[in-house]
């Protein structure tokens, strides 16, 4: 158990919940001393008995704060009456309400428990959503920071800036304090002797980027000032997570050297915990890095045409956002005019946080909406329950009103029970949220940004408070309405009969219909997400990974400085892997399908029939993949015609071989005949030897830019993904050890990533959709159960109320079927009303969901039909039980009981 965390949670509960319950005078005079004593008490108890001690202290303190005394003796203690006669006295009212709740433990426990779950669920969802979307990023003055992207005229969002753009922005405008260039990379980290290789993400920024962000290392001095001293060793900052994982949180790490790609780097600091700095790759998801380096590049000599960096700028003090945007536009126009013939290149700014959370906004918003709907249902549910209790107590209250207690007392009494239950539900909800928030954050890892910053924090507590308040207000409406409309004179007479008044029945029916409407909206939402995921699952990613396995190996360091060595080494490892028993074939590639990143080249297909003659239209950007022999076959690419490209060989001159995808083939060779045609890129020329189905790079569900597969030796990559196809019946576990051994037999210093099925990448590309669906389905199920409980309560109540009438009918010869039909007819009317309301609500909310849906419209008739059917069946099942009971009413008994 984490002691300090337990104490922190307890402290939050105490400060926000328990301390404010104390009388003001006591707080003013003893507040500080009490706080200190509570803290010591809690720390001691946790240190001695862990969570048991924690719970004991919290319960004891809560009881004390709520006014329960040391023990029972005080209740009988001498002293005058506390109350001023028969009027309203808050303390005694509270005590009575507590006692009343205590007398029906079943009701109280169920109400508090459902409330705790609902409040906890909402609080954690709210905390996570606001932590991601609203909380400021952990940098200095984060609102002054903007990412800069360079968009070309085509459909190419978040393009890289050239180093030259960064230099111009620094020199030509005063609007920014500083502008830095960023890139992410993968590097190989080893111990000083080159052992224990591990592949790590890296962030590379131009000099001064740490100061630009305003991040101070948690330990260590940080990067030395630029060029000082000139022969100083290269420096690196280590993330808190990597410091713990790879270096055992060694306090003496700072100042030592580590090996990165075979070169020594001096560790100059450890970054703060939760410093999860992420850079969007131009098209893929944001990536962070566990090692931070200073980019050792002279930006002033950068090629203006080559996009290589994300730009990060800090807007200068006193400069407004419009001025900064205008200054940026001037530079952007200048670059476009001077180098791109004013074809519409645009450098544009975006707020750091907006950029990071752009893709998370819609799903998180929908999630909070779903949790809020669930809360509304919960509130309506509790309202009906409390309404029933108020009814039950009507005799008591009307007696009191007859005695002159008045409406105020009635209202106060009606409000107290929901308030107390809400308070208990809040406490329980905080515990639920304390557990659920980290779970949710863990589920979101890799799917949502900023999950490292999430935890049980004041935002979660605020969410819980908000939820409890909302539910309490809703729950109070039932009894409040009843309390206000109760006619004190008639109350006695009404209460004398069993059952409820007409007004209460109507209120309760309205509440239940509301619950059903809300539940239906949630079920429709969950249904739409299910259909959407179904559509995605049957989407063809364009290749058939089968049982192929993949892992990444990086060939870096002094032994792999030459392209030729790298090519030879990779081919040797590939041969070794092919020779491993149980392996059918092996190959390697620079970027796997669905990895979202690879190089883009401008390509042309001279002489192809699909060309228009306009050189600007006919030049296309291609996603380019460097493939070894055997890769396309092993990874399950589908050849439409031709064959895989052969290596061009060490001393090749002239065209090499290339395979294109069906996107290019359709566009440039609509009538076939691609084989043998030429593709040019810059000064390269290649002959098309094959056409494959496009294997999706960015997402399973849509066609992308055209793709070109070139031999790996044309443009060798230091880091490649190997793909091996095992024999039928050979499992990954059987093979992992021997694959690793085969690589390390060649060179023990090569880092081998996790060996995983290639098909898993298709699955994890859908992880966000699965997460959305899982949470929505949970909420929808909870909503159905609550709505079912609601309708059960109403129908059961009606059966009790009409017991006499049913008895009479049966005495007159009505058979069981007619009775059941009568009872079910009532629930059918409620269900119908709820359904209509729910469909209207779903229609109103549907358009919010549409950005999360694929292949299904928010008004999908199948989903709507199934959801309505589900709700109907739930309602039927919930009303059948009391209806069935009604048929067993013995006429004589029913009549006699009145």
């Amino acid at each position: 158990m984490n002691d300090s965390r337990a104490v922190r949670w307890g402290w939050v509960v105490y400060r926000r919940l328990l301390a404010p319950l104390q009388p003001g005078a006591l707080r003013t005079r003893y507040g500080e001393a009490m706080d200190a004593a509570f803290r010591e008490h809690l720390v001691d108890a946790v240190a001695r008995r862990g969570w048991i001690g924690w719970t004991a202290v919290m319960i004891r303190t809560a009881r004390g704060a709520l006014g329960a005394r040391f023990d029972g003796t005080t209740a009988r203690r001498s002293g005058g009456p506390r109350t001023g006669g028969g009027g309203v006295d808050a303390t005694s009212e509270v005590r009575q309400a507590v006692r009343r709740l205590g007398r029906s433990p079943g009701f109280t426990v169920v109400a508090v428990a459902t409330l705790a779950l609902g409040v906890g669920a909402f609080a954690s969802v709210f905390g996570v959503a606001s932590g991601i979307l609203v909380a400021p990023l952990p940098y200095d003055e984060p609102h002054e920071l903007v990412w800069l992207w360079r968009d070309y005229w085509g459909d190419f969002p978040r393009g890289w800036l050239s180093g030259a753009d960064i230099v111009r922005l620094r020199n030509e405008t005063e609007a920014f304090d500083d502008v830095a260039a960023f890139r992410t990379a993968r590097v190989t980290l080893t111990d000083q002797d080159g052992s224990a290789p591990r592949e790590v993400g890296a962030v590379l920024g131009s000099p001064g980027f740490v100061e630009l962000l305003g991040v101070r290392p948690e330990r260590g001095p940080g990067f030395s000032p630029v060029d000082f001293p000139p022969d100083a060793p290269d420096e690196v900052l280590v993330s808190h997570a990597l410091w713990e994982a790879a270096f055992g949180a060694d306090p003496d790490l700072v100042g030592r050297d580590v090996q990165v790609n075979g070169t020594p780097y001096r560790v100059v600091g450890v970054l703060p915990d939760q410093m999860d700095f992420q850079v969007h790759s131009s098209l893929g998801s944001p990536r962070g890095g566990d090692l931070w380096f200073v980019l050792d590049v002279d930006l002033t000599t950068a090629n203006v045409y080559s996009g290589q960096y994300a730009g990060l700028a800090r807007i200068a003090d006193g400069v407004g956002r419009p001025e900064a945007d205008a200054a940026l536009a001037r530079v952007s126009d200048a670059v476009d005019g001077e180098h791109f013939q004013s074809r519409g290149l645009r450098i544009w700014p975006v707020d750091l946080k907006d950029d990071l959370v752009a893709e998370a906004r819609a799903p998180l918003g929908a999630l909070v909406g779903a949790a809020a709907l669930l809360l509304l249902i919960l509130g309506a549910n509790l309202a009906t329950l409390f309404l029933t209790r108020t009814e039950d107590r009507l005799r008591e209250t009307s007696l009191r009103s007859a005695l002159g207690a008045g409406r105020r007392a009635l209202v106060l009494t009606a409000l107290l029970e929901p308030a107390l239950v809400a308070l208990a539900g809040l406490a329980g909800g905080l515990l639920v949220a304390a557990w659920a928030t980290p779970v949710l954050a863990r589920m979101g890892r890799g799917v949502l940004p900023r999950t490292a910053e999430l935890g049980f924090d004041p935002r979660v507590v605020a969410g819980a408070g908000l939820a409890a308040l909302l539910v309490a207000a809703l729950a109070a409406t039932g009894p409040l309405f009843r309390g206000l409309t109760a006619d004190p004179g008639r109350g006695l007479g009404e209460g004398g009969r069993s059952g409820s008044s007409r007004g209460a029945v109507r209120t309760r029916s309205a509440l239940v219909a509301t619950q059903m409407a809300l539940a239906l909206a949630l079920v429709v939402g969950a249904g739409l997400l299910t259909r959407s995921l179904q559509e995605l699952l049957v989407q063809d990613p364009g290749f058939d990974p089968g049982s192929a396995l993949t892992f990444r190996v990086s060939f870096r360091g002094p032994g792999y400085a030459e392209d030729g060595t790298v090519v030879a080494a990779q081919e040797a490892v590939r041969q070794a892997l092919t020779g491993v028993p149980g392996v059918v074939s092996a190959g390697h590639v620079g970027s796997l399908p669905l990895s979202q990143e690879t190089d883009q080249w401008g390509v042309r297909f001279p002489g192809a029939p699909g060309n228009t003659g306009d050189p600007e239209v006919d030049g296309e950007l291609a996603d380019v993949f460097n493939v070894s022999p055997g890769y396309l076959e092993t990874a399950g690419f589908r050849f439409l015609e031709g064959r895989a490209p052969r290596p061009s060989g060490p001393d090749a001159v002239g065209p090499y071989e290339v395979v294109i995808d069906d996107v290019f083939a359709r566009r440039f060779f609509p009538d076939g005949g691609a084989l043998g045609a030429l593709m040019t890129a810059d000064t390269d020329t290649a002959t098309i030897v094959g056409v494959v189905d496009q294997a999706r790079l960015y997402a399973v569900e849509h066609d992308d830019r055209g793709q070109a597969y070139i031999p790996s030796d044309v443009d060798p990559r230091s880091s490649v993904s190997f793909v091996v196809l095992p024999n039928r019946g050979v499992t990954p576990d059987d093979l992992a050890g021997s694959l690793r051994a085969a690589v390390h037999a060649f060179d023990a210093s090569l880092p081998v990533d996790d060996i995983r099925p290639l098909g898993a990448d298709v699955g994890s590309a859908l992880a966000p959709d699965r997460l959305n669906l899982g949470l929505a389905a949970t909420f929808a199920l909870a909503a159905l159960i609550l709505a079912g409980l609601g309708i059960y309560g109403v129908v059961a109540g009606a059966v009790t109320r009409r017991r006499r009438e049913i008895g009479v009918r049966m005495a007159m010869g009505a058979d069981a079927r007619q009775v059941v039909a009568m009872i079910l007819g009532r629930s059918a009317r409620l269900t119908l009303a709820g359904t209509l309301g729910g469909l209207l609500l779903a229609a109103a909310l549907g358009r919010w969901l549409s950005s999360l849906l694929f292949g299904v419209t928010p008004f999908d008739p199948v989903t709507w039909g199934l959801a309505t059917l589900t709700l109907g069946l739930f309602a039927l099942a919930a009303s059948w039980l009391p209806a069935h009971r009604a048929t067993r009413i013995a006429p004589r008994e029913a009549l006699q009981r009145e």
Partner: protein
Amino acid sequence: MSSDVEPFLPLRPVEFHVLLSLVNEERHGYGIMQDAEARTGSAVIPDVATLYRALHRMSEAGLIEPADRKEGRRSYYRITALGRRVARAEASRLDALLAAARSGGLL
């Protein structure tokens, strides 16, 4: 039994424990809780809110008073002469009750 202690009897258990804890030395709030726990086991230690309400009442009534000693945010309390008499009176009252219970064969 002197008449000035009469109105305070019987004491609430929390009040009695506070006085007991202060009989021999000055203590701060949490010190009183610890002492009560050491004396009785965890079953009857008061919570912070109950304790400070009692401390407030008892200071007002003159059974205890703030001591001169202070450590950071902790204030120390000491027992007054009146408090001592009240504690003693409560103890003999309880003693008499116990004796009665014993002679009645209850214990």
